[in-house]
């Protein structure tokens, strides 16, 4: 048995997508974004050479949660919201397995929110893929914990009044050691993100924007339509500076924010995760109902006055502003991982984590962060801790 799926490459050569397909008929609605994600998962596993016998897909309930039935690996379709806990049990009993958790936004953030944050906190060696379509699909269209304020659904005919989760902030707040976002229209990027998640030892949280063409069609249209993408998607690569469209064109890089970029979208937020501090545009509220006033998030144009290269001061402010206003910060494309709080893991590419917000006067303070960083580096990863 291999220690990690990636090392199974030696034994399982030339795997193709077919090796991961089951005979079961895939029963999502025609046009569902889940097809694209399933394909990307299968292609990605084939590319990684992940041994099907050593791979377990665990899910809760929902449209997304049917995915394990379509994967020719070990699989368990569990109960609503409990997939991270079921997967923790699998990983704890046999730490050499590659355990993937599949769930939707309702499954992961609503009924199973508790299990999600604790799995991330424990840094159990599981890879969590959350398909976010901002709607309850399997129950035929109720608003979800990621639906925007004012969302008109069957259960909110006058528009939802609930403030949605910022799911990446949830993950980062739980001090997840790997957080990334991708979307169902870009197979290449999904595959790359899944690969990086797979290579990460510890809990990986990957949000996948997914379109529900029946109950929430066009959920991400303003971001994902072809002509909007270059402006609306900002690729985050760990250890690399964030480049906005104009910067990418100009190839000028550097640490300074371009005025052109700053002027474009009307609302601002810090990137939820990166090792350089930049502001990332976020979407406008899509208020479809006038019946309820929507809460407008005030743009935080400048969270701190410190110079950009004074990292410590900046990061403190960054975090606060992130928590408050970075709803749907478009931190997609390429990959993104949190700056390894307390050294729980190194970053994706193997480069050292550049900064840790915990070190910067977070709730635990500088000294403790450094101490734990040293001690954690010396100890086993989390599955072993979970077993204690």
């Amino acid at each position: 048995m291999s220690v990690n799926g990636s090392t199974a490459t030696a034994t399982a050569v030339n795997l193709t997508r077919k090796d991961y397909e089951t005979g079961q008929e895939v029963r999502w609605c025609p046009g569902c974004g889940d097809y694209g994600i399933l394909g990307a998962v299968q292609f990605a596993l084939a590319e990684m050479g992940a041994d099907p016998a050593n791979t377990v897909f665990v899910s809760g309930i929902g449209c997304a949660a049917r995915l394990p039935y379509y994967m020719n690996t070990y699989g368990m379709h569990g109960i609503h919201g409990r997939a991270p806990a079921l997967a923790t049990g699998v990983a704890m009993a046999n730490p050499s397995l590659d355990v993937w958790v599949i769930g939707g936004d309702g499954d992961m953030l609503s009924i199973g929110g508790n299990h999600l944050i604790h799995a991330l906190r424990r840094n159990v060696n599981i890879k969590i893929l959350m398909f976010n379509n901002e709607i309850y699909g399997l129950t035929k269209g109720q608003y979800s914990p990621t639906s925007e304020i004012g969302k008109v659904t069957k259960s909110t005919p006058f528009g939802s009044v609930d403030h949605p989760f910022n799911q990446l902030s949830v993950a980062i707040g739980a001090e997840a050691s790997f957080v990334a976002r991708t979307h169902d229209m870009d197979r290449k990027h999904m595959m790359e993100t899944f690969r990086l998640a797979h290579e990460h030892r510890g809990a990986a949280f990957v949000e996948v924007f997914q379109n529900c063409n029946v109950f929430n069609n066009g959920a991400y249209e303003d971001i994902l339509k072809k002509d909007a993408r270059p402006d609306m998607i900002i690729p985050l690569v760990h250890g690399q500076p964030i480049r906005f469209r104009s910067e990418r064109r100009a190839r000028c890089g550097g640490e300074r924010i371009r005025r052109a970029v700053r002027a474009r979208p009307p609302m601002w937020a810090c990137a939820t995760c990166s090792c350089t501090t930049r502001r990332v545009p976020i979407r406008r509220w899509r208020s479809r109902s006038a019946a309820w006033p929507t809460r407008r998030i005030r743009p935080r144009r400048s969270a701190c006055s410190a110079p950009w290269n004074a990292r410590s001061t900046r990061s403190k402010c960054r975090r606060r502003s992130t928590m408050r206003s970075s709803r749907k910060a478009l931190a997609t494309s390429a990959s993104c991982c949190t700056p390894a709080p307390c050294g729980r893991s190194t970053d994706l590419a193997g480069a050292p984590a550049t900064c840790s917000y915990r070190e910067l006067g977070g709730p635990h303070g500088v000294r403790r962060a450094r101490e734990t960083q040293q001690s954690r580096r010396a100890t086993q990863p989390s599955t072993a801790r979970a077993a204690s």
Partner: protein
Amino acid sequence: MTSMTTLDRVVIRFAGDSGDGMQLVGDRFTELSAAFGNDLATLPNYPAEIRAPAGTLNGVSSFQVHISDHDITTPGDAPNVLVAMNPAALMANLGDMARGSTLIVNADNFTERDLEKAECTSNPLTDGTLENYTVYEVPMTSITVEATKPLGVKPRDAERSKNFFALGLVCWMYTRPAAPLQEWINAKYESKPMVRDANLAAFKAGRNFGETAELFSPYEIKPASLKQGTYRNIVGNTAVALGLVTAAHQANLPLVYASYPITPASDILHELSKLKNFNCKTMQAEDEIAAAAIAIGAAFAGSLAVTGTSGPGLDLKSEALGLAVSLELPMVIVDVQRGGPSTGLPTKTEQADLLLAMYGRHGECPIPIVAARSSSQCFDAAFEACRIALKYRTPVLLLTDGYLANGAEPWLVPEIDDLPDISVEFATEHNHTNVDGSTDYWPYVRDPETLARPWATPGTPGMEHRVGGIEKQDGAGNISYSPQNHETMVRLRAAKVAGIANDIPDVAVDSVGGADVLVIGWGSTWASINAGVNRCREAGHAVDFAHLTHLQPFPKNLGDVLKGYRKVLVPEMNLGQLSRLLRAEYLVDAQSYTQVNGLPFRAADMEARIMEELAR
């Protein structure tokens, strides 16, 4: 030196404030008696608050221990001796004391303020309340303070050692050896020399007081003649923990125990977390549901998976149990029952989860149930639950209760070689041939005898398969919504559990011949029923007694046994749950005798109720 009187048994109750260390003193006295060779049974009784207001009736904590020179099962009805550290402890326990019994009270704690806190209008020591008792007023606090003064202990700290004074006194009265306790104090308080010395001095002062005050005459209780072997003192939760570890060893599987802290089940987690050396992994989950889910995940991955809880936790785990039934994975769920509903009485005992265990899930969801009858038998019950779970690939509920969990008794440690091998074989070969000649692994192809499905664990090449809570096709295990298939699967799961009846022992009847009353119980009432039946028999009445360990399915002969009696009496610490099941299942006129006061039945009450049934 006063003369020594020999007793065959004695019941002693230590009572004081919940911060007075009465549980500690009781535990120590129990250990001393166990080491001395007496048979014993204990009943700890304490409030749910860690520190209720001091000196009040609500804050009274007590520990009752019954020691004897012969085989006993209950902690005794009425104590012969009550050690009361304050007026509240005296008044809260006086109702349980028989006339003529002995009261040893801490005279220092009967000031006006103490009396007020205990809601006494007058001093019970002087107003004639205690005239039917033998009362010894001992100034425990002041003697303790005096005795520890040379050590330089502050009076306030010295007072804390008064429980060891009381223990010393009682140990002298019942001729317990001093050396083991002194060793224990030395080891326990090694890092705090001042506390150690104060406790040793207080203990010694207590013994000396007994010897020199000439108030009492010492008693002797000879060791009981138990079966030869190695014994240890054990409480139910420890016995469950050891039973689980032993079962995992005999099954040759790693043990995974996931649990969320809950009174009175947490001690199982504490015990198991010390036993990592036996390939045991423990997990303190984020909630009860997660604990059950983690166990299911671990079972899927090939461990002997166990989760433990009490009533409120079992409510929460219901959905996960349904999943385990549907997945048909081996798993044990320990329910240490406590008083309900809701938070109820967390530290008191009750047997009111039987119907929950039996039926508390949606859909047709049968789960085998095993119930332990005594603290030491918790070991066997845990082992049996694991055996059934592994053999039949099913979740099994193990019911114990608060009384068993904390009550102590001697346990004959079994030889590992005498325990059965319960190892399982994982599936590693395909078990289905398709029409085109290719082969597959089908997860729901059943063993024709047990109806158990194969268990293939992740990591086994070629055996990849999917399981889930959605109804699955018989054999192949793929999703199936076919009406006929659902009917088949529901009946198969029920038949599998019902079939376990062929694999469990018949219910044994403790029969005297010619009796027309059968007393039948389950769980921890075993001790009280046993004692009550014996009292009736000593009075010359013919009463038969049977006790159930397996409640789902019932033993095969149970119907015949019940029909052999004119009257069937079912004592239970609930409102008649087993009697309902027996009536429904076997159409017998089972009479219910119930009590829900958070305490075990008293043998005298049991005797009275059986006599009533005999006369009816």
